[in-house]
């Protein structure tokens, strides 16, 4: 059992933070790695990339958006409640080295995943500029943390309610036009990663993205998480989750993420009526 020691709601309750006791994982985990969580006996195994770890306290932090049955179930867990299973750390850690000028682009809960990577890249001696975005001001998360983790932070909202109006890619384009960038890290919704990668490809700037396909075991045993990278099939849980953004088949990934949409809806609806 894995106890929740801290819980916070953000973005008007659509995003939830859990700090969870998991000493073995906390000791081992590196930025970019994920865990699989299962709330209870009948629960689904859900992969989430860690937003933070505290090896001394023996805790890990996850930040998730409530999008379906399983995350709705997670949301019902209060401080002091427990996850039945937490497995990790899984996947390959982010390769952090000094490359020079880096731009970190984050959207939605991808910002939570981007944060430890941004911090690590800054610590590794890079000049880090970050761009984070959300649909509106109320849905933006982790602005202060990202400000602290970067040398420079740009904030955009789709509706202009805060920061710059428009998409993160608008700001990214200005930066790419202005100076020579050595690395871009883009983490967020698949369409965002697709557009970021399309843009950086034009400028010939190396780009890393973190993929979130459907998973079961997270250890390379099922192949449910397969993604096409440069025409080759890879298992995101062991070969990734980070990949060269220019090689990813985003359209296939978007399709595959829809595989259980109807089931998911059925399950979510029955859960919501049950708890109404």
């Amino acid at each position, binding site marked *: 059992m894995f106890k929740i020691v801290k819980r916070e709601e953000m973005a008007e309750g659509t995003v939830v933070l859990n700090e969870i006791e998991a000493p073995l994982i906390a000791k081992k985990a590196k930025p970019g790695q994920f865990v699989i969580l299962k709330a209870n006996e*009948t*629960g*689904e195994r859900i992969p989430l990339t860690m937003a933070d770890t505290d090896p001394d306290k023996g805790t890990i932090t996850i930040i998730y958006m409530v999008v379906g049955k399983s995350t709705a179930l997670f949301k019902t867990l209060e401080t002091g409640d427990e996850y039945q299973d937490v497995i990790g750390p899984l996947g390959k850690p982010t390769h952090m080295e000094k490359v020079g000028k880096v731009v970190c682009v984050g959207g939605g809960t991808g910002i939570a995943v981007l944060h430890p990577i941004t911090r690590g890249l800054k610590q590794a001696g890079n000049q880090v500029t970050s761009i984070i975005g959300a649909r509106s001001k109320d849905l933006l998360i982790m602005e202060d943390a990202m400000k602290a983790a970067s040398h420079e932070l740009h904030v955009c909202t789709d509706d202009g309610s805060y920061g710059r109006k428009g998409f993160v890619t608008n700001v990214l384009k200005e930066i790419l036009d202005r100076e020579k960038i050595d690395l871009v890290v883009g983490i967020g919704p698949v369409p965002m990663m697709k557009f970021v990668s399309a843009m950086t490809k034009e400028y010939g700037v190396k780009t890393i993205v973190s993929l979130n396909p459907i998973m079961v075991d997270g250890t*390379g045993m099922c192949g449910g998480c*397969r993604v096409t990278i440069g025409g080759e*099939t890879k298992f995101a849980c062991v070969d990734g989750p980070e990949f060269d953004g220019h090689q990813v088949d985003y359209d296939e990934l978007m399709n595959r993420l829809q595989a259980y949409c109807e089931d998911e809806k059925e*399950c979510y609806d029955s859960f919501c009526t049950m708890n109404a």
Partner: protein
Amino acid sequence: MADTKAKKEKIPRHAMPEQDPDIRKRNFLEVPTGYTVEAAMQEAGRCLQCKKPSCVEGCPVQVDIPGFIALIREGDFNGAVRNLWTKNSLPAVCGRVCPQEIQCEGKCIVGKKDDPVAIGNLERFAADYARMNPTGELPPKQKSTGKKVAVVGSGPSGLTVAGDLIVKGHEVTVMEAFHKPGGVLVYGIPEFRLPKEIVFSEVAFLEKLGVKVECNAVVGRTVSLDELFEEGYDAVYIGVGAGLPRFMNIPGENLIGILSANEYLTRANLMKAYLFPEVDTPIPRGKNVVVLGAGNVAMDSARTAMRLGADSVKIVYRRSRDEMPARKAEIHHAEEEGIEMMLLTNPTKYIGNENGRLTGMECLKMELGEPDASGRRRPVPIEGSEFNIDTDLVIVAVGSGANPLLTQTTKDMQLNDWGYIIADPETGKTTKRGVWAGGDIVTGAATVILAMGAGRKAADSIHQYLSWGW
């Protein structure tokens, strides 16, 4: 002499009572319901009690077959299971899943003229009897040695090692990557063939003996092999199975609606997705399902798909019936349940719609040519024989390979060209000091009983090492 005796008695082999195919093909209850006491004692009476029993030669772990059968005949069922346990710690499992027709029963003398003695059914009977009528008796445990053993993987081979070493007085911890122990017995083999309750009761028994079972422990990630030694373990056994799904590598394989058998069966069995939406894990319910391959894994997948409500389920296999590797009983059960066999057929590509969902598959007809390296006649494509099958769900069950997760992170342990761990066939010793391995991660995907046999040899060797050194 044996023949005259058989002629005199002439009791036909007791058929295993089974659920009716039309009913069972839509439920997940176990198909064979087990012998009654009377049937078991009568079937036991068919055994000739040979002086030199050839069935025992056919058993990879040399179960004392005439011995346990004689005890069943006398009505001493607890005695029978105690006899079984001396060679086989999971008789309830083996009675159900061993390929008896090529092992013990294949060698049985009665089988020369008649149907062989139903050794597997009797083994199952004795084990089920003991589980249903527990005496609470535990095997004697030797006094504590203070040595610590880590067993990585909780499949049949790991469980065997754990059981053998705990009674020898060592401290044993089993580490399992999944959230439930049992390996393939839990995530792969379906409920209707091996009720999970049996596996959990075996694990509970080991825990009662003092074995610690740690789930959610991915060795190679949560903790490395070397760290286990740093934490004070004196020996490690690796029984992580052959958990790397093979795909066909033909165009369209990443369409929605194509799953590895590992994924499909894990969703169905471990995650109990057949109860969806009562449980949260979904599983695709195909209307026209195709399963690629013809081993046990393929039969299990096909029969699961049927139970999940498919209109049609086809096994597509590139060789002929004679080469199908599944247990005979499973092929028979599958056909009774209405599963179609499309033999000498090989898929060449998948066909999908604009949403990336599978709609069909193109196949080629094959014919048998010259024998290949395995001695089986090689299937060769018939030119121009392409045809399409409509399907909305394909389950790929064409074998599995070595999962590199643990071995990649353990530098000084030698692997063969296919990534399997090199281990001494007699002792299970790997090239890394203090580390043993066995089961599917050494042999490639094989059988429960071979995995257990390897576990037993390794446990003996580990015990020697802990007592005398490497």
